């Protein structure tokens, strides 16, 4: 029974270290050019909502909901404008995206701060960390919406449905090399 505090400390430290490593590697992966898949952004939003909603419903920290909404909206605006800067390109016939690192890293900061305060801080610090997470959730949401909107005309080109007014440069798409399959 005397070992319980030490066991809790080591479990908390291990969980914090794991979460930190996972989220940093995930943020790096999401910031490098990769094949664009529309479902990936949707799954990211769903997972971010599950994490935030799960913490609110299960742990129920006493944070101000109005502040969370305001920060969520501001995060969504930041993510949306950052998402418009995503660069699309075509490589070996596949549509690639280089997304802005803003939302992945904002979400990563939120997760790390929330984990740290949850494991070692007081409930007040954890409640404040939830507001950081609300901003990160908004950023993920805004960025994914912007990317999906931007990708639509690019995907239409790939399906042969090229609209006369479509301008690849306007869609943030790098000009494909001559002869490349689009």
């Amino acid at each position: 029974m005397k070992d319980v505090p030490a066991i809790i400390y080591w479990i908390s430290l291990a969980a914090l270290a794991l979460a930190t490593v996972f989220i940093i590697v995930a943020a790096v992966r999401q910031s490098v050019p990769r094949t664009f898949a529309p479902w990936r952004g949707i799954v990211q939003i769903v997972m971010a909502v599950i994490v935030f909603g799960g913490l609110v419903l299960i742990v129920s920290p006493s944070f101000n909901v109005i502040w969370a909404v305001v920060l969520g909206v501001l995060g969504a605006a930041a993510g949306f404008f950052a998402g418009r800067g995503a660069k699309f390109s075509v490589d070996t016939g596949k549509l690639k995206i280089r997304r802005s690192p803003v939302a992945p890293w904002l979400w990563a900061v939120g997760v790390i701060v929330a984990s740290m305060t949850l494991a070692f801080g007081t409930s007040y610090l954890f409640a404040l960390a939830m507001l950081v997470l609300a901003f990160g959730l908004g950023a993920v949401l805004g960025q994914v919406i912007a990317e999906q909107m931007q990708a639509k005309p690019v995907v239409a080109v790939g399906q042969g449905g090229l609209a006369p007014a479509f301008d690849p440069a306007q869609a943030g798409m790098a000009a494909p090399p001559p002869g490349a399959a689009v």
Partner: protein
Amino acid sequence: MRRLSKGAAALVAIVLLTLALLPTLAYAADDGTNSYAGTYMGRGDGKDKNGKTGDSMVTIWVEDLGDTARITFQVDKLDVTVDAEGPEQWSGEDQVTIPITINKYGVDATGEITFSRDGNTWVLGGSGSGKAYTYDGDGQTALTRISTGIPMPSLGEQIKDMGEAVVGGPPEPADDSAVPPKGQAETQAEAASSLAPAEAAPPLPTDDMFVGLFLLTFFPLLFLLL
């Protein structure tokens, strides 16, 4: 796109304006005599089924939720936090009993917490029986209120404490000789304004903490695999 940007800016402006116009309604001034809510501290002792006795410092945070009360316990020797909710059973205006059952995080126990008015303050008496990890027996506690609400250290102090907790290694075993703050003047916790980003609250129950840590570790792993 420009229309969408204008719409987003207008939405943010409306939300911020609403927030600014919200009345800063602090709680009605309450000197704490009408409510038994607050932070209590004292000692508890127990006897297990083999007749072995032991004692520890105990801190209990009490939140009055109307017809029910939420009670959060922390026993120093265990350094584990558990909470329970129970209905108020008033006996006149000066005594209220809250029956509670805890069946989580290695604790399976039932008991009763009684608050009695003592002049301008309240005192807490509790008794119960059950299992907590390797302990199986009964126990009782008598605590005095040290604050009408939940006292909150400054933000800087909390951040410093958290830093020390992260890198400071496992906590030292609780000091058996620690004594409750006898005769300590009861402090009045400040109510948060409606614009405060967060409120002071009891420590998080240990099981909630682990569920939260699981969410924050498992889902980044899924993010990694995407």
